[in-house]
């Protein structure tokens, strides 16, 4: 042992302070602070993690004293529960089935949410606000996240507390055992409203909705290009177009929810293949 140590230029010594040193091109791992400002992970950080794990365990243990994992009657393909609720984290998507056809609410939209989330770092060109909480330096990014997930949580709350038999709207004070008369609400596609308003044929009515639908995406894509030129310049054409597609789709979902709840609009766009 002693023989080994003498061969080393700096003998190992437990009374000395040790750390790993790394050579970096530009910035060292610890560059803004003096090395003396660092602490050992053992025990400082590990102790925090350990306490955290204990708190989570205790929290879980306390929780399961009051609430138990549910178990209903044996699966029965011939009896459908009414209402049939998905697990809470999918209730938002289930609620969206009220506003959109299943191919969109159940498949395409979730796919777009996942893809949009993945693309976000590549679409956000604002270099500010890394490593600290800030709203003022990145208002628009925070707005997007907050809006998207408010939609997610609001639909979950609606699905949990405001939907009853046949997935109809029930207030907490409504009679939850009585079926609502679905005939009270007539859902109409938007083009029929235009047909009645302007006394035009079905073809013209649909043409108006086609123009409004395409116009919504086109106009709102072009206006910010002119009004917020610096933002558009910073993003570049393709990044901007990708972002606007996702952004306007998200806003469109919110708009459709409002149209459906307030004006009983079934579809804003009807085509021979798909409807929105």
């Amino acid at each position, binding site marked *: 042992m002693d023989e080994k140590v003498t061969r080393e230029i700096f003998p190992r010594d437990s009374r000395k*302070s040790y750390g790993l040193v790394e050579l970096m091109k530009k910035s060292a791992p610890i560059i803004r602070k003096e090395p003396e400002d*660092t602490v050992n*992970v*053992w025990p400082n*950080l590990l102790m925090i993690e350990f306490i955290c794990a204990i708190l*989570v365990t205790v929290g879980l243990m306390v929780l399961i004293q009051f609430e138990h994992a549910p178990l209903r009657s044996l699966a029965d393909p011939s009896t459908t529960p009414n209402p049939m609720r998905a697990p809470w984290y999918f209730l938002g998507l289930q609620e969206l089935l009220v506003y959109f056809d299943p191919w969109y609410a159940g498949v395409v939209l979730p796919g777009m949410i996942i893809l949009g989330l993945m693309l*976000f770092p590549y679409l956000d060109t604002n270099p500010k606000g890394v*490593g600290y909480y800030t709203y003022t330096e990145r208002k628009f990014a925070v707005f997007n996240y907050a809006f998207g997930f408010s939609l997610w949580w609001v639909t979950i709350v609606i699905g949990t507390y405001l939907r009853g038999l046949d997935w109809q709207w029930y207030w907490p004070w409504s009679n939850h055992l009585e079926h609502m008369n679905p005939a009270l609400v007539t859902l109409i596609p938007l083009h029929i409203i235009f047909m009645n308003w302007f006394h035009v044929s079905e073809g013209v009515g649909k043409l108006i909705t086609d123009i409004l639908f395409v116009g919504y995406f086109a106009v709102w894509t072009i206006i910010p290009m002119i009004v917020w030129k610096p933002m558009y310049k910073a993003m570049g054409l393709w990044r901007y177009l990708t972002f606007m597609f996702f952004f306007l789709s998200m806003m469109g979902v919110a708009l459709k929810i409002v149209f459906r709840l307030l004006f009983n609009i079934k579809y804003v766009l009807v085509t021979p293949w798909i409807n929105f």
Partner: protein
Amino acid sequence: MLQKLKSGIVESQIFKSIFRHGYPDNDLDRAYAVFTNVFLHIHPVKVRRSALRMRYTFCLGGITLFLFIILTLTGIWLMFYYTPYTGLAYRNIKDLQFVIFGGNLMRDLHRFAAHGMVLFVWLHMTRVFLTGAYKAPREFNWVVGVVLLVNTLILSWTGYLLPWDQLAYWAVTVGAKMASYTPFIGQNGPWGPQLGFLPTNDIMFMLLGGTVVGQNALIRFYVLHCVVLPLVVTVFLAVHFWRIRKDGFSGPL
């Protein structure tokens, strides 16, 4: 004498072959303790004092990992008592509830840790978003994180079927029916029938191994829930953590 016994153990060849350092009561051994340990070397040896402040990460990612570990342990325990067969699955759960010692405890822990994991993945994602931690050079780690989020949701959903009660059966029936509306490859989706997709060959059939939720669906969900998805999550977790170390921590660490 105790001192002698202790030094006898600590200096023995066996002990030294396991722990390649002394007790971490000095800086050298503390450094060794972290970077010679496969589980601890996820950390750097030293961090800034300010990194000990909880109000940056709130430990959200760590809590998510911890819940995943709880889920793995309780899940393995539950597997000993569970048969993925439609005639037995429900009775197995009843046994866990009323017969098996600790059955309720493990099932409740598994269930609520699962809810917690979904919630904490989301909270962690919110924290990462609000601190701009997804920005360059960490864009791809955010993508890995979204993959983990999706996997967490699918894990929860596949586990939902296993008790084989009404809740399980219908949640999965409704969810699987969604798949049949997939454009191009679903029997009910736009352009699905036109491309020749029927109840017996579309994406929903592939998911369930049949036209309705039955024995084939149960075994598929069981294998996905207990083997495939946990493995996928573990691999992506490894990448997720590795990249945090390589890209550096976004905050005051």
